[in-house]
């Protein structure tokens, strides 16, 4: 029980750190132009290493916190992010036979596509009831392409750097 509690605290702190990092980085012009999805990159990199269902609850926590700082109504990021993580998790478990860099690239691409599609669907749905403003679909599409590109690069960087560090640690402390 105590171990589970510690694990929860750890996940909460990591989520808090990631939200803080995302919000701190968004203040820099290059980041707000490229808009890499830090959460997608991190969740995908974690999923590649440890494909446990807890990742869905971690993303639940993460997107809940992110939505507190969004300019849209509460729930857009929260719903699209969490549901996308669940779908990608199933996709990863059922279809991906090899954990290679290519599968990571595909996973991040599908992840961003899924989030943006659900997000756009919610906007479209609520706009019909005049609850939210519509978005420019062309701009959104361009933004999505930039986001996929930058998120893939960020995801690869995170995955490869952690891979390198873990290999070094294994070699130094575990294998020897």
């Amino acid at each position, binding site marked *: 029980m105590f171990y589970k509690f510690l694990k929860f605290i750890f996940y909460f702190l990591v989520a*808090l750190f990631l939200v803080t990092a995302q919000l*701190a980085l*968004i203040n820099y*012009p290059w980041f707000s132009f490229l808009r890499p999805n830090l959460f997608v990159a991190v969740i995908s990199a974690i999923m590649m290493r440890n494909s446990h269902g807890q990742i869905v609850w971690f993303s639940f926590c993460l997107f809940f916190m992110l939505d*507190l*700082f*969004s300019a849209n109504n509460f729930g857009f990021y929260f719903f699209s992010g969490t549901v996308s993580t*669940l779908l990608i998790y199933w996709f990863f478990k059922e279809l991906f036979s090899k954990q290679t860099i290519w599968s990571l690239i595909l996973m991040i691409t599908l992840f961003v596509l899924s989030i943006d599609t659900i997000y756009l669907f919610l906007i479209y749905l609520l706009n019909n009831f005049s609850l939210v403003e519509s*978005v420019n679909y062309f*701009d959104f599409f361009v933004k999505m392409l930039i986001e996929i590109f930058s998120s893939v690069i960020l995801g690869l960087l995170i995955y490869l750097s952690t891979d390198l560090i873990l290999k070094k640690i294994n070699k130094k402390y575990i294998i020897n």
Partner: protein
Amino acid sequence: MNRNKKITFLFISLIILLTIFLHSCGCLNFFENFIKKVVFSTSHFFYKQNISIETKELKDLDKDTLITKINEMAEQKLNLENFKSQNQMLIGENEELKKQLNFLRNNNYQTIGAEVISRAVDPLGTTLIINVGEKNGVQIDNPVIVGEGILIGKIIKIEEKESTVRLITDNNSKIGATILNQSKSLGLVEGGYGLGVKMDFIPQNENINIGDTIVTSGLTEGIPRGLLIGKVEIVEKEPHEPFQQAILKTSADLSYLTVVSVIIRAE
């Protein structure tokens, strides 16, 4: 999708909807305020740091001189540099506040001062978070100004203690405006990808000159007439089009906003 997956999907969707419901009821306020406090304190630091890096003159320290100096002296120098940059920022903020105060004295606007905490998470927009909210009397569509009545945006979302400002450069920003020329041309000021501002729907037969001042027309809900937006930089006039466009140079530098005022009531 098998039965188990369907149940899991429905279960998670239900939990999300329940959380959204609890959020809108305010039941999660304590938890949310804690997260906001932690995140904003860090984010605000980075926001200010970013502005301070871009605005202050970066003085390249001579490395050779530094090496020869005693460690203590070098540390003192760094502290002084830090103090100087902070001081420079405070002077800037002070001048900005004086300008705002001067404008507000001359007009019958009821305003509230606010500090920019961070940029908001927004897939397409250019939005900021400021540290005043519903509790301070801020309402949706309230205009946000800097300096001597320069419009920078309007409120699009309010929380208890924070609000989100949509800048005039935002893609979804549309504000009714008037050009201060002979015919007092009316049009619509629209943002473009967070990079610039243009004025559209200006009748083709009206004469616009580069350098003409543009102010709010008062036709947009919640935004009073006469707030400065910018000046005409380029005029785009196509003979076959019914309207002409003007590219504007905003009067406020929207990249370096630290203190702003929200007009909560215009008389």
